[in-house]
């Protein structure tokens, strides 16, 4: 049915001052006769630490993606949506006379393109490019950006050879001195996204818990009102969407219950599950919802902190990740790092699957995204900052010619990719960080 009055894009289901749930793109939101309304372009960064075993990452060919190398195998179903990029370099991650500390530098400068100041207290970086975009377009969404992660958000202390933990534990920087620490706790993220924008007070949480109510219960009235105005397609879409929120909520409740059983004294927030994959699933489900409901168009996600020494016992690997990456070419250590690399990509692939299966407009949510997955080091054993492992998944709004491996000239600044992405986000700039121009050869034209 075509109506003359469209549902505003930023409609929320609200209830009792506690809940505010954004909505996915519904047909009812398209202005009358405006069949050409384009969904917004979103971007996300998935950063993995400690580099990559590169022969498992880089295909041996250029051009159309065929057989994916081992680490990327789990993304094979989506290879037509992937741009695999070669030779991108972060010179500002290198020592440049500052001595040891590649982990601190590579993460600190990853989205800023700035040589960070080597210090534990007098931290100095630049504004990350995601925040430049957020400053320009952030007013159009509930959250200008979301900063998320899964490990250790502490900011103080020495995390690498004299580099403050602020450099290894954050991707996004609002100013030269102000990083944006990632949210690690799914419960905190859930409440931020579907509550009043802030974590609940203990009293509010207790009240909700006492009656074992879902956040959806608070918005029942608004939901019924909205449903009455929707066509059958929109009704189905809304139902699926609200079900996905409920599922996330259940996951969090389960995790909280499990954590209490495992160790009542554990210092993790109760919403953080012990299981890595489960943690990722919860965070990524909410990321998908955030993009679907246009709550934000910018997400940065620190899979684990740079230099992470997390063991992966779920893979039978009790050794810490970072020590393993100093493998000294020992085959058994390299194999373990490969398994960790693969495991991380498998988690990411599950998110890609969700984005790909979510319809938006004439295509999928993935079509309108630029999901960058990569690391700030390539070969971790040598601490290399060139040919950084980088893929973009999604077409960035029918822009990227995906399904290819594109290799830039050696030493091409990573910031050139950022310039191209800023353009796609509607925030064109002449230069950023150490850029030398936009990254060419990625688009359909």
């Amino acid at each position: 049915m075509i109506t003359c009055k469209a549902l505003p894009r930023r409609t929320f289901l609200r209830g009792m001052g506690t809940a505010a749930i954004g909505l996915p793109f519904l047909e009812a939101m398209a202005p009358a006769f405006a069949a050409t309304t384009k969904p917004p372009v979103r971007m996300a960064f998935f950063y993995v630490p400690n580099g990559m075993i590169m022969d498992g990452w880089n295909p041996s060919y250029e051009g159309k993606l065929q057989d994916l190398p081992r680490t990327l195998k789990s993304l094979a179903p989506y290879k037509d949506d992937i741009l695999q990029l070669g030779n991108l370099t972060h010179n500002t991650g290198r020592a440049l006379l500052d001595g040891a500390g590649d982990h601190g530098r590579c993460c600190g400068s990853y989205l800023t393109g700035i040589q960070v100041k080597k210090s534990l207290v007098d931290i100095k970086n630049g504004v990350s490019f995601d925040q430049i975009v957020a400053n320009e377009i952030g007013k159009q969404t509930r959250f200008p950006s979301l900063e998320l992660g899964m490990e250790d958000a502490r900011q103080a202390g020495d995390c690498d050879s004299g580099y403050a933990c602020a450099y290894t534990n954050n991707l996004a920087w609002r100013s030269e001195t102000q990083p944006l620490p990632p949210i690690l706790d799914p419960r905190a993220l859930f409440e931020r996204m579907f509550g009043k924008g802030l974590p609940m007070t203990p009293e509010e949480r207790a009240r909700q818990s006492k009656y074992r109510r879902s956040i959806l219960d608070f918005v029942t009235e608004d939901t019924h009102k909205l449903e009455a105005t929707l066509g059958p397609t929109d009704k189905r879409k809304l139902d699926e969407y609200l079900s996905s929120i409920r599922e996330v909520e259940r996951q969090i409740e389960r995790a909280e219950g499990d954590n209490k059983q495992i160790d009542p004294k554990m210092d993790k927030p109760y919403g953080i599950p012990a299981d890595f994959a489960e943690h990722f699933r919860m965070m990524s489900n909410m990321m998908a919802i955030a993009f679907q409901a246009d709550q934000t168009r910018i997400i940065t996600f620190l899979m684990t902190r740079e230099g992470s020494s997390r063991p992966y016992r779920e893979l039978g690997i009790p050794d810490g990740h970072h020590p393993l990456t100093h493998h000294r070419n020992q085959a058994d250590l390299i194999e373990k790092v490969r398994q960790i690399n693969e495991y991380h990509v498998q988690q990411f692939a599950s998110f890609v699957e969700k984005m790909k299966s979510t319809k938006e407009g004439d295509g999928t949510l993935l079509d309108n995204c630029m999901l960058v997955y990569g690391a700030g080091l390539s070969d971790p054993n040598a601490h290399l900052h060139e040919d950084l492992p980088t893929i973009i998944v999604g077409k960035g709004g029918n822009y990227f010619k995906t399904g290819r491996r594109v290799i830039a000239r050696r030493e091409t600044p990573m910031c050139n990719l950022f310039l191209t992405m800023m353009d796609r986000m509607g925030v064109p700039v002449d230069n950023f960080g150490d850029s030398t121009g936009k990254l060419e050869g990625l688009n359909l034209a």
Partner: protein
Amino acid sequence: MQFGRGGKPSAGAFFDTDFATIDTYLAQALLHGLQGKNDCRVAIVTMSRPNLAVAGFADAVERYYRGPAGNFAQVPPMGMRTEGAPGETPVGVTAPFQKPGPDGKPLHVNKVRTVIDTGDPNTLFRNYLQAQNDQNAFFVLAGPATNLAAALAFRGMKELITAKIKYLVVDGSERNIKADVAAAKKVFAEWPTPVILSGSEIGNSVLFPGASLDKEFAATTPDHPVAELYRSWKTPAYDAPSGAMAAALHAGRPKEGYFKVSEAGTITVQDDGRTTFAAMAGGKHQHLIADPAQKEKILKAYVELTSAKPVMPQRFRPPVAADKAADKDPLLDKPEAAKP
């Protein structure tokens, strides 16, 4: 970090050329010879014409001197301009790749197959200048000034050059200046550091002895790729003018007295490519003056340095020490970071 512990490093050498004469290839070898004597560190080599075959050869020379890439000892990319004409390709540049070693495999491997195997000169200048200590690097220009003129227009480069570069030595052979007069004018007018010109007469005053191929090269570096190229350049190997080598030698050993140096002044490039020098106190320019008394000393240096055995760069972390260093990595010594 550009080198290991203790002491000031030798100066970083930036070599830009068109690799159009055998002299320019010898100059690349000479700079590495100087590196072997700890007189400089070859930071980056860039080329001012888009010729992949030549870039591949020059890259192989870098690999010959730097050894296989490994931990903390990487071979930097060849810089190559992508605009303009590719120019002539010397017939000998592919010969080293066909020469088998004792195991039957090629002695040298061509790693430059397409333009993506090279780097943009401006980006390389910028990246490698940032890794130098202040006033502890020099440029040698032995070809058209095209790349250096472009660098002067690159964002932030003038400031970087001012901070890092002590001087630029130019092989001002007539063909080099005339190949891009506008660029030469710009470089002499705008280059922010002192500039020393080595005129055509310098290169012609001492000819590199072709006979050294069968003597010094054959004795010390029989598989030297530049020697291979030299043999194919002309038959029999001739005595070559040495303008590029003179510029490189003076840049690496400015106090050795191989050449006299003029008083300060200003060099101006005329429209027809001629250069004129006007003495002026406080001027940024000087030019080299041939000193016949030094001829034998120069010849000896040329031959010794170009034919010297490669001295592999000092690794930041030598193999054994690397293990120990890894064990002492502050990240590895943080048990709290290993918590799940």
